[in-house]
């Protein structure tokens, strides 16, 4: 027999096997409690309001804002382009396609960051990727983007640049005319905002002929 005949036999046999067996849809990838704790402690899930504002203004098609508050609050005020998935519906089957995907960057937000963080925790535990949390929630958004505070006298260059960006973002996103959301749960209100952590993205593979 020629080598090509051997190759034909082996490849066809393997391909037949793979075509006949059912696809493996089990998800071996789940986080252990320790791994989850590490992620929470490093805060990789948080995206700063500045980055979110920047993406909204640039009309980044990969950005998907998800409001996890109840529909009533969502109707009163929501961020541009956001969709509403109340926290109690986060595990419902009709939302699986939205939450478990590889192309968009989902960002959960609530008034503070507690509810959004809970949504992130639940989806992360079942192994979903690309879900993030708006740092500090809508309250911090109001403070930083909608009503930015001018830095004190003699600000550092980057502080001034950040203020300029926030002022511009505020104008672009219709700030000034809005009043901060007051329905925040008491537990959320005084919560310290988490540190800024760069968003980890999937790294691209490279190679070729």
């Amino acid at each position: 027999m020629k080598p090509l005949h051997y190759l034909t036999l082996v490849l066809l046999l393997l391909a037949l096997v793979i075509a006949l067996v059912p696809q493996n849809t089990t998800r071996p990838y789940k986080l252990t409690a320790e791994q989850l704790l590490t992620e929470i402690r490093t805060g990789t899930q948080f995206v700063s309001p500045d980055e979110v504002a920047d993406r909204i203004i640039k009309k980044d098609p990969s950005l998907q804002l998800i409001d996890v508050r109840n529909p009533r609050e969502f109707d009163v005020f929501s961020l541009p382009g956001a969709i509403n998935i109340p926290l109690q519906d986060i595990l419902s089957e009709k939302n699986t396609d939205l939450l478990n995907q590889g192309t968009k960057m989902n960002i959960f937000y609530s008034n503070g960051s507690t509810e959004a963080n809970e949504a992130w925790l639940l989806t992360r535990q079942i192994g979903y990727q690309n879900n993030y949390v708006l740092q500090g929630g809508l309250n911090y958004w109001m403070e930083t983007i909608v009503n930015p505070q001018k830095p004190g006298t003699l600000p550092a260059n980057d502080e001034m640049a950040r203020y300029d960006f926030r002022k511009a973002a505020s104008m672009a996103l219709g700030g000034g005319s809005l009043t901060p959301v007051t329905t925040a749960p008491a537990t959320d209100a005084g919560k310290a905002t988490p540190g800024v952590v760069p968003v980890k993205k999937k790294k691209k593979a490279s190679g070729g002929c």
Partner: protein
Amino acid sequence: MGPLSVNEIISPDTNFFLAFLIGTGFGFVLEQSGFSSSRKLAGLFYGYDMVVLKVFFTGGVTALLGLLFFSLFGWIDLNMVYVNPTFLWSSIVGGLVMGAGFITGGYCPGTSFCGAAIGKIDGMIFIIGLFIGVMFFAYGYPIFETLYKSGNMGAPKISTIVGTSDGLFALILVAVALAMFYVAEWVEKRFAREEY
């Protein structure tokens, strides 16, 4: 090194070192299989040597079957594997440009370095051309930008578009590849050249 560097198990420096070793091995195998000869590569277009087609399709279907079996055994989660997004129109135009360079130069980028490494002058000239092309694209990027980003389809799988299972699609592709190999054998006999 796929999962190792993305998950930061190895440092970027180690990653580069491993890439260097793998690259050297790849180049060595290419050279040993005769891919440093521009005649062998151009043979694909004239029909007297179809090795390139056979090598790349064998590589493709082997990787396809390997990944599906790994997934079957639960060794790899295919949802975690990064797939390059498809930009339809830039892929088509890029493919044509690449093919034209392939047939006129007799090399693809990797094999031109192979040829240059063993002292072939045409390989070196090809590399110079390659860099001219890179500069042309880089400086002309504003002109090409629309084309470069057109036809973005995300990262679709043909099996999803057609609506078959991944396994069935693999079987079809393997059958097509094997059929091509037999046709290639016939073509090689039909357009055989004694010396090249």
